[in-house]
């Protein structure tokens, strides 16, 4: 069972949260001009990395706020927490 560090409520049981998946996916500009491949890339293609992962969580049964988490998908260790409008932080000693 994971303990998720909500920036407002502190560490809480994963049961209270909704996982929002991969972070920093931006909707492509020019919706009426981009081709199907660009849409497929945006809608469906994912990094799914084995290692450092930048993802979104929502404290659904708590404060209901969204935030970002950096987690290692091999150990499930959470390495950093940051706000929705922040850029992904570098993790010292880790590339990706």
């Amino acid at each position, binding site marked *: *069972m994971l303990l998720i560090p909500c920036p407002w409520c502190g560490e809480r049981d994963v049961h209270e949260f909704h996982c929002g998946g991969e972070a920093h996916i931006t909707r492509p500009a020019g919706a009426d001009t981009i081709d*199907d491949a660009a849409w497929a890339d945006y*809608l469906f293609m994912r990094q799914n990395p084995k290692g450092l992962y930048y993802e979104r969580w929502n404290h659904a049964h708590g404060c209901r706020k969204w935030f970002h988490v950096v987690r290692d998908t091999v150990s499930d260790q959470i390495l950093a927490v940051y706000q929705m409008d922040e850029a992904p932080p570098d993790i010292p000693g880790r590339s990706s």
Partner: protein
Amino acid sequence: MQKYSIFSLARNALSRHENWREAWRSPEPKPEYDVVIVGGGGHGLATAYYLAKEHGITNVAVVEKGWLGGGNTGRNTTIVRSNYLWDESAGLYEHSLKLWEGLSQKLNFNVMFSQRGVLNLAHNLHDLRELSRRVNANRLNGIDSEILDAQGVKDFCPLIDTSLTLRYPVLGASLQRRGGVARHDAVAWGFARAADALGVDIIQNCEVTGILRDGDAVQGLETSRGTIKANKVGVVVAGHCSVLANMAGFRLPIESHPLQALVSEPVKPVLDCVVMSNAVHAYISQSDKGELVIGAGIDSYVSYSQRGGFDVVEDTLHAVVELFPMFSRMRMLRQWGGIVDVCPDASPIIGKTPVQGLYFNCGWGTGGFKATPGSGNVFAHTIARDEPHPLNAPFALDRFTSGALIDEHGAAAVAH
């Protein structure tokens, strides 16, 4: 291949079973093969077997980073059925079910395929309608499938609590009598042994670390046991497919999640069919050893940890105890996790990739064991001819660009 039979058993009994030969060789990798299959799970081994058996391509290696069947093949709850909704899926899964039906004889290896019937329970009006629709679709596709009312469920599986006092009462079920379970390890071993007998090299403890390319074409593999050249490479690595795609320079619409299962202490036979429920999310059968085999759900987050959260196990056991009150005092013996490759439309991806000569077979998620023989069969065809078999053509990677998705969330809702 040393043929297994009642006579060979008797003969070997005379020498105290000390003279059985190894079921397959463990050769050193050759510098080059016609085809290399990455991943020694059931699907990869079946692919190699059908390449040799049906397409005469025997200069083949299967490279596996751990041991045969050590991935999801050896970790799954072994439910086999073909009652999927859409025509494309019906074609693929029923092809596989037909291959299961003669598999032990073909492989000369007892895969313990037991067609004991699979129930999918309905707990509300919507479930009933959804199941009826699926049963009708199955029958139009020539797949055996029927609807039972609550009494019919009770008659078929007397253990289930069908009283109306349940929080989620059982209103009926779909039943596929030809569905059932098989022995997971035996499937990997049976295909491995038969493929080896046809000349396929099975190489364990050999991890692929890079994919070699010459421009747009695949040239071979970098592995922990050296470079292996091949102009055709089939990748069948389930939860690790994105890692391999990354080595080849493209992305997949896949996310990898832990999926757990658990078994109880063994007891006398009590449950002689497979029971699944989408709504309360539980699925259960009893193994020939007597253990209850229970599948849980996936964790919601991406993880390669090969273990899941206890909360998921807890939720599953709630549901099981509600349906089968008599199991409330059973003790669970073991619990484990696999990494499943979840695709947005709950259907697999089988076919070509942006790299010439590189083929992927993945995205089976929580439900690919049932497809093991069929998947290997059509994937071998795809690799041998460099074009998909008609049955797997709709399952190409480019359906995510064309929009021709094959949405099987209904048939695959309970992770199985």
